[in-house]
């Protein structure tokens, strides 16, 4: 029964039509379906591939950028510290300078004042001595009168007395 039926027997018509239909199908699908479909799928795969690649690259760049930022930040902090340190040093120096200068000025002032005072004192003493000598001569001449002849002898005598007085005072 199986062999009698057309189940497994060759049929030229079926072969012919199958070939024809399959080739038409192959041609149409090749031209209008497989080409565009495979291209579209390929394009999308490429795009996904590229997108993943560029995302990876962006991440790398981000990492580098972050590292850079860190460095810049650290540098900035160091700079700030340095500026602060410098400022403090300058302040200290200026303060020290100012102090020193004012000290020396005041010292000089005091010194000059002392010198002045010394000089005034010496001249004052000399003045006093002269005044005292004059006064003593006037007093002595009034007291002694005309007993002494020459002024020169008188002067010599007075100086000797004064010296004696000074020696006694000491």
């Amino acid at each position, binding site marked *: *029964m199986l062999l009698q039926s057309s189940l497994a027997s060759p*049929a030229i*018509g079926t072969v012919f039509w199958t070939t024809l239909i399959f080739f038409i199908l192959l041609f149409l*699908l090749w031209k209008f379906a497989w080409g565009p479909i495979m291209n579209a*799928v390929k394009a999308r795969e490429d795009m996904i591939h590229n997108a993943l690649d560029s995302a990876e690259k962006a991440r790398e760049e981000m990492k580098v950028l972050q590292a850079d930022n860190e460095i810049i930040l650290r540098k900035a902090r160091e700079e700030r510290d340095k500026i602060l340190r410098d400022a403090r040093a300058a302040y200290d120096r200026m303060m020290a300078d100012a102090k020193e200068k004012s000290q020396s000025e005041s010292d000089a002032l005091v010194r000059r004042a002392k010198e002045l005072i010394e000089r005034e004192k010496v001249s004052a003493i000399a003045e006093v001595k002269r005044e005292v000598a004059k006064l003593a001569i006037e007093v002595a001449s009034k007291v002694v009168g005309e007993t002494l002849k020459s002024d020169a002898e008188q002067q010599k005598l007075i100086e000797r007395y004064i010296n004696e007085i000074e020696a006694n005072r000491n």
Partner: protein
Amino acid sequence: MKNRYLYFLILVFALLAASMQDVSAVISEDEVKSEKTEKEFDAAPFIMEHVADSHEWHILTKKDGTDVAVYLPVIIYDRESGFHLFSSRKIAHGHSYKNFTVAHEGKYAGKIVKVDEHGQHDGSKPPLDFSITKAIFGMIVASVILLWLMLALARSYRKTGISAPKGLQGVLEPVILFIRDDVAIPNIGEHKYGKFMPYLLTVFFFILINNLLGLVPIFPFGANVTGNVNVTFVLALLTFLITQFSANKNHWRHVFAAPGVPFWLLPIMIPIEIIGLFSKPFALMIRLFANITAGHIIVLSLVTLIFIFKSVLVAPVSIFFVLFMDCIELLVAFLQAYVFTLLSALFIGMATAEPEHH
């Protein structure tokens, strides 16, 4: 989620309808027969009628004995009278037209033969039959559906440009990518697979859609296309031709002077290698034909159990088993399309392989 249940329901109904249609056809046939002669129900002719190719598409036989059928065009070439084109209605039920009729017995059973005035086969060779038979018609329907599907897919890519796959793309793209990444590239190689892709894709989807539509029992589907040995012959022949014409020097050296084989073995090896060239596509042809035909025969056999046992009580059992078989057939439909494509790719890959450097 909801859609998935819907598809499942549609599948179940389709499978139920499959069994139901066969049942109704058998019932009427059986009644007609039992009215005429009280002979036992013979399952074999019934099954063969459904599995084999024919010039008309029988849908059902009404209770009054008239047939509901789609009569397909008959195109024959006779060596004496040339081409003839007429409807198969004219030669149905044993009628003859222009001295042609369908032989029901003898050497040319099921084929169109020439008859004499008395309606007797004159014994001459049958004319060449280029009719649009059931298988051809089913194949055309399947091809149109496939073409429509794939053109719609190509159009959707043109329309949406590069975007995430959705809709039709989501369904068909993984299958296309599977053929490319798991069938073509591993077997043929990264550099050469491109020019074989159109053939592999076409043959895969052609077999698949014909397998699937062969499971749908409602006109215009359900023709046994991939279970027709002539159809599988053409497909296997194409694989064979592509394999041989794309074969490189290395391939032929392996056939005629296999490296490492002593020369006195060559007289044995060469015929074996040549037989091997033909046996590979021959196996392709038989595998697809036998798998699909066997599946159809099992389903039909389960249905005829009802009439062999002459009991409606067998029907639920039959329907259950038919349902089960149809699920397996669904798997087989994919599997055989895959196997045919895979082996085609393998043969092409073997023929185009570069020599290995040892």
